[in-house]
């Protein structure tokens, strides 16, 4: 099924999440790969996480995008603006659901486009990414995006983590 794209890149489309996406979120949160983003957990708790991700859109007017590959049409992850209560700064977050979609630069490509969108559409100036200590794959994405580790930045309410600060709108 196709849904209207909000952002398009060379290889990806970013769109608002829809109900079918919940199955991917549940699958992902059952695996150890979700351990850096609040998992793993059973399918019931995965459903509640998905409902919370999707509800963020209605509360804030924006939220994580579902990312689709243009070549296969497959939905591969959630990437985009994230600002729940208790967050010290506006965040760009990312999760790629399956290992076969890693290592091809998809997270970097989608997050970069989402960051531009946040600058232009939401008027965000300071943007961070919160990364769990030990999540070296995610740190590599942040560095490729030109984000810089800031050891003095405030942490989110969920606890200590690595705070990467993204370059400004003109970068």
């Amino acid at each position, binding site marked *: 099924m196709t849904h209207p794209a909000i952002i398009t890149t060379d290889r990806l489309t970013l769109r608002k999440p829809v109900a079918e996406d919940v199955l991917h979120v549940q699958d992902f949160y059952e695996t150890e790969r979700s351990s850096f983003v609040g998992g793993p957990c059973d399918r019931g708790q995965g459903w509640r996480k998905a*409902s919370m991700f999707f509800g963020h859109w209605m509360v804030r007017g924006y939220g994580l995008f579902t990312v689709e590959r243009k070549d296969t049409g497959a939905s591969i992850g959630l990437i985009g603006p994230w600002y*729940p209560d*208790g967050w010290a700064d506006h965040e760009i977050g990312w999760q790629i659901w399956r290992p076969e979609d890693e290592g091809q630069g998809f997270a970097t490509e989608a997050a970069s486009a989402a960051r531009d969108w946040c600058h232009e559409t939401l008027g965000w100036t300071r943007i961070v990414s919160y990364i769990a200590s030990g999540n070296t794959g995610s740190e590599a994405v942040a560095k490729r995006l030109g984000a810089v580790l800031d050891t003095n930045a405030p942490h989110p309410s969920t606890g200590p983590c690595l705070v990467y600060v993204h370059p400004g709108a003109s970068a």
Partner: protein
Amino acid sequence: MTPPTLHTERLTLTALNERHFEPMAAFYADDRSSFVGGPLTAERAWRVLAGEIGHWTLRGYGRFAVELTATGEMVGLIGPWNPHAWPEPEIGWDLMNGHEGKGYATEAAKATRDWAYSALGWTTVISLVAEGNHGSRKVAERLGCTLERPYTHEIYGTMNIWRHPGPEVAS
């Protein structure tokens, strides 16, 4: 789906949004929320709010913000609720602090039950009431429910399943 607006004698049932965060955070900060997964920090309560709204995205229905028509004050969070792995679709009710004992839960739950029967086509519905939650049990009794059996959820603990009268009786 965009939630409809329902009206009862004293209440307006409408879509949840960010303006309902404050009363929900106060409810979840209080021990009164212990029967429904609380107490929670404000940050966790925000995620509960987002999750309630996301339930509409995933299911096409969910709970309503219940407001006093006269003042717009939020008095409850009430309506159809059916997250993943729930025993059956239910009508759930949470009364915000200071609004107990005025019949609001009964009045709003009845309106959402009628809506679930007429708009969603439900033919039967339950309500889960936590062991020891006497206030909630009274609401179930006033709604004409009959006690069916206990049900234990691995996270939310032991609750009783109350069965509502069917569409032909309830309306």
